[in-house]
């Protein structure tokens, strides 16, 4: 049980090269489930490996608990790590794999035996103890790797994309299992993934990273509903958030979002932020999630007055419970709508849609930062 604190941590692989991790500041609370998420090469794995002590820190400090661990070797950091490729020792049986760490700490024989047995029972791998890792399926191997980590009763769990090598169904099962484990063990966990679904479902907080920089750290709800910039908005959520280009216009003391095809009134709550940033009469990007769009009706003729948002169905994808309807608004602007599966429109149909305006996000055209 311990918090993990990053203080201006920098990682540079080449002297002249780009920073892999750039002035990383983050405090991970005790017993928290922190998910580091981002596209590949964003430095999330490097960050995790620095906590583990497998990578040297170029500058800055990392604390585990109250101990500064910059120069502490991995085995003295009291951590356990689960790897993407499981990293089970192929030459040892499952029992030996799980007992390896305990043996190294000179735990008594009968203690090793009983704790491995009971742990393997909870993970439902008891019948596999005599086998070699090669004879196990991916899911079983990952459970062994988890068991091996749990047996060490570490202060911090580090997981480096542990579910990436599993198939979709197993991934969901293992996800549940890890969440449950976290609840039972009440240990700090740092979890690295590139999968935004895992991040959303598992984390108490999510840390979204890009190019070695932290974009946003917050609870899944906030990251999803109030992303701080366009990158976070598009990275989190599937299907991606819709982005429309347009201009903010002022008319009779009210603000409107106007594109070449339509204009719409902006709720009063957002006026202050838009005005403060000097965004009136400027072009901005509007973001809205697919589930916050509603289909009003089918149209036969294109509208003329510009008060309606309309588009032509290019194609639709049935996802089971939902159907994603792709609309072409013209002028290279596109919308994806998440609609119930029973709403069915032929390709080429013209539809009128409305937005739940309280869920609109505005972003700067150039910087991509949220306007709020």
């Amino acid at each position, binding site marked *: 049980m311990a918090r993990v604190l990053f203080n201006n941590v920098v990682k540079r692989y080449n002297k002249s090269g780009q920073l892999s991790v750039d002035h990383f500041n983050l405090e991970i609370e005790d017993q928290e489930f922190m998910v580091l998420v981002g596209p590949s090469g964003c430095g999330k794995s490097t960050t995790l490996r620095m906590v*583990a002590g497998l990578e040297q820190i170029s500058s800055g400090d990392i604390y585990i608990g109250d101990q500064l661990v910059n120069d502490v070797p991995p085995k003295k950091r009291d951590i356990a790590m689960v790897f993407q490729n499981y990293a089970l020792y192929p030459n040892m049986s499952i029992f030996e794999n799980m007992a390896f760490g305990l043996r190294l700490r000179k735990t008594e024989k009968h203690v090793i035996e009983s704790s491995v047995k009971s742990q393997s029972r909870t993970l439902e791998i008891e019948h596999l103890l005599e086998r070699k890792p090669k004879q196990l399926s991916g899911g079983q191997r990952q459970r062994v790797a988890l068991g091996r980590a749990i047996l060490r009763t570490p202060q911090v769990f580090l997981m480096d994309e542990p579910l990436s090598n599993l198939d979709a169904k197993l991934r969901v099962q293992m996800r549940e299992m890890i969440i449950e484990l976290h609840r039972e063990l009440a240990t700090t966990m740092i979890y690295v993934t590139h999968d935004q679904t895992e991040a959303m479902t598992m984390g108490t907080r999510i840390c979204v990273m890009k190019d070695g920089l932290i974009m946003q750290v917050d609870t899944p709800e906030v990251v999803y509903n109030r992303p701080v910039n366009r990158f976070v908005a598009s990275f989190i959520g599937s299907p991606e958030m819709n982005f429309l280009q347009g201009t903010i216009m002022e008319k009779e003391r009210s603000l409107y979002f106007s594109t070449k095809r339509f204009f719409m009134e902006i709720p009063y709550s957002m006026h202050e932020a838009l005005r403060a940033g000097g965004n009136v009469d400027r072009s901005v990007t509007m973001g809205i999630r697919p589930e916050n769009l509603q289909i009003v009706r089918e149209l036969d003729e294109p509208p003329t007055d510009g008060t309606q948002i309309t588009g032509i169905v290019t194609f639709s994808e049935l996802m089971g419970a939902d159907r994603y309807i792709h609309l072409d608004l013209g002028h290279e602007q596109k919308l994806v709508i998440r609609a119930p599966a029973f709403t069915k429109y032929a390709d080429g149909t013209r539809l009128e849609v409305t937005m739940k305006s309280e869920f609109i996000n505005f972003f700067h055209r150039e910087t991509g930062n949220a306007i709020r």
Partner: protein
Amino acid sequence: MRDWAYNLKKGFRSLRRMTTFQWILFVAMTLLAAFMLLPIVYLVNHALKPFNELFLYPPTFIAKQPTLQNFTDLIVVTQSSAVPVTRYLFNSIVMSVLVFFTSCLISVLCAYPLSKHKFPGRGIIFSGIIISLMFAPEMVGIPRYFVISNLGIINTYWGHVLPLVAMPVGVFLMKQFIDQIPDELLEAAKVEGAKELRIFAKIVVPLCMPAVATTAILSFQTAWSSDETSTLFMEDETMKTLPFFVNTLTNNLSNNVANQGAAAAVALLLFLPNFIIFLAMQKKVITTMMHSGIK
């Protein structure tokens, strides 16, 4: 036994499924394999031929009246000379076994850091080892003699073993093999608290056993059939090895006919250990070859 029957059955089933081309290939390969076997058949039979058959013209492959006479001759012939054949054999065994173990140990000890640790000059060291593969032993004969002589280990087992201990091929094979071991394995062990030596002994060495086996075969064959160290570094007859003795039997004696039988027996004696070791370890050798991408 049932396994064996099952495999045979499976083999026949796949035979039936073969295309014409595969049949042609199958027959051709079988013939080739039989052809490659001939020298071994000849070697074994030659050692068992009685004296009159040894000089038959045309020579025969199969001994008509097999006898162990040649082996008794071998012992008798050398009993009269200063050094008995058993002494040569003993020297050969001591030297080969020592080379067998030390070269494996040194190769794997050298390959592991080259493969998994980052330190300055790593590339240069490895290139140096690769370049040293290009030197024929004849080329380094004289400098090697100076080294051995200055170390004062002429006429000792050290002189036999040391020149053969450094095996660039072994280091190369092992490095290629250790490269295949994922870094995560070693990192997992490190996080679990294993020290370098334990990681090496408990994970790296067991995992590269196939490469160790290959190196072992190569080093044993080199040592067992090498007469170079005996010729160059040993002045004392009692320190020389079996391959050297074979050469003296057939080349250096004035009477070439007299010892042909003994020579045939020694030839078989020289061949057998190689053969047995290779058979025992061939499966692992194939794994190594697959991993290191060489043939």
